């Protein structure tokens, strides 16, 4: 078994995530094939770019059944980061030719839509440091992270969970949106903890030490 597996399905800057996890004293490994998911005590699902492209890569790589097996079958803790959090949704609009959106992993019921569609009139993308505030019940992911702590965001789409109780923190970009989610053993952050310096280290440490379900 490995401490934490970072899922490498062909997108993004994974180097910073691995280095951040190493700094915290863990021994992260890149998981480069779906078979490898069973080896991880915890899993991180990164993501950059386009929701529909990321889902296509997960599907073409045969990741989806293996992810369901590990996460919903065996209760392995999963942290989705940025688009990786958005992929947890039922549907995402980005890059989709279907008015219902592209189907996501469906781990956390909800939909991912453009911040403009949700009513924001701010400059897009929403890029930079923004404060998060708790909105749900206490969660181990945010232990030691006071309300008002700034994290680094870079995105134009946001996740609206169907069940408000799944949202554990929000941020504001003209309108409030979900900054972090939790549903059972599944977590997500819209921001990038691996690029959020000390605050991000604390959050990743919390994920690495969160009790397993």
């Amino acid at each position, binding site marked *: 078994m490995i401490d934490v597996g970072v899922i490498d399905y062909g997108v*993004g*800057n*994974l*180097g*910073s995530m691995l*280095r*951040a996890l190493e*700094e915290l004293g863990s021994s992260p490994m890149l998981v480069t094939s779906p078979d490898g998911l069973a080896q991880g005590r915890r899993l991180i699902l990164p993501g*950059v*770019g*386009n929701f529909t*492209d990321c889902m296509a890569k997960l599907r073409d790589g045969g990741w989806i059944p293996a992810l369901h097996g590990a996460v919903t079958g065996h209760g392995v803790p999963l942290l989705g980061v940025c*688009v990786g959090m958005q992929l947890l949704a039922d549907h995402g609009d980005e890059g989709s030719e279907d008015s219902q959106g592209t189907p996501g992993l469906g781990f956390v019921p909800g939909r991912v839509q453009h911040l403009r569609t949700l009513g924001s009139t*701010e*400059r*897009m*993308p*929403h*890029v*930079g*440091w*923004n*404060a998060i505030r708790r909105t749900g019940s206490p969660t181990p992911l945010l232990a*030691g*992270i006071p309300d008002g*702590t*700034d994290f*680094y965001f*870079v*995105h*134009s789409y946001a996740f609206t969970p169907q069940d408000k109780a799944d949202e554990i923190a929000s941020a*504001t*970009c003209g309108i409030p949106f979900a900054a972090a989610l939790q549903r059972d053993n599944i977590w997500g952050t819209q921001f*990038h903890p*691996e*690029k*959020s*310096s*000390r*605050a*991000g*280290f*604390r959050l990743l440490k919390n994920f690495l030490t969160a009790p397993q379900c």
Partner: protein
Amino acid sequence: MLKTRIIPTLLWKNFGLVKGTNFDSWRRVGPVLPAIRVYNQREVDELILLDILAHLPDQYPDYEAVSDYGQDCFIPLTFGGGIRDSRQVGHLLRAGVDKVSINSAAHDDPSLIGKIAETYGTQCVVVSIDARQIGSKGWRAYSHAGQHDTGRDVVAWAQEMEARGAGELLITSIDRDGTFQGYDLPLIEAVAAAVSVPVIASGGAGSYQHMVEAVRQAGASAVAAASIFHFTELTPAGAKAAFEAAGIPVRRSFIDAD
């Protein structure tokens, strides 16, 4: 609320960092890696690293060096210089870069911006525009580290780049670069008013007040500066204090209490 970013710019030439005036008269300012480590330690908001020679023929991004720099950077890192195709962007993202800055290659092939945005998302595409004032007729965009007049109007070019998928615009005044006379506020204001993506003001900062003006008067979402941090006692932390005093929201450092 979104914080206003203060971004040190690192200009990289051969093996070290340099800084010039009006894109010329380069002075050496030291090695790259220690500078990145120090800024990372001091928790600056973000870093921009530009290879100012990589636009030359047969040059391509030095992935190995970028990987060394990116690995220890736990804040957002933008890299620019010599990027000519979407495949190179993939290599750079893997090497630890979060965003790429594109200038000359966009002038050669404007559709490159759309290709990168489609594959990697608009959020990772920073289009860098180097501007010179042309009398009272506005500003013209220059490519190849300020060497080549593209004949393009800066504001129109900024709008085209946004339409093609740029996620941010880095607007540098060649006239003000390294002069400490302050940002070209009308330039920044003209671009910021014409686009709805974030605009990073660059070129000419000589005081904290100049940075405040770029945000307050010109509408910049972030300020970049190089000379001021290399050659004076002014620091990103000092700039933050000045922003706070002026009522501009800034990011506060996180202290892990445990």
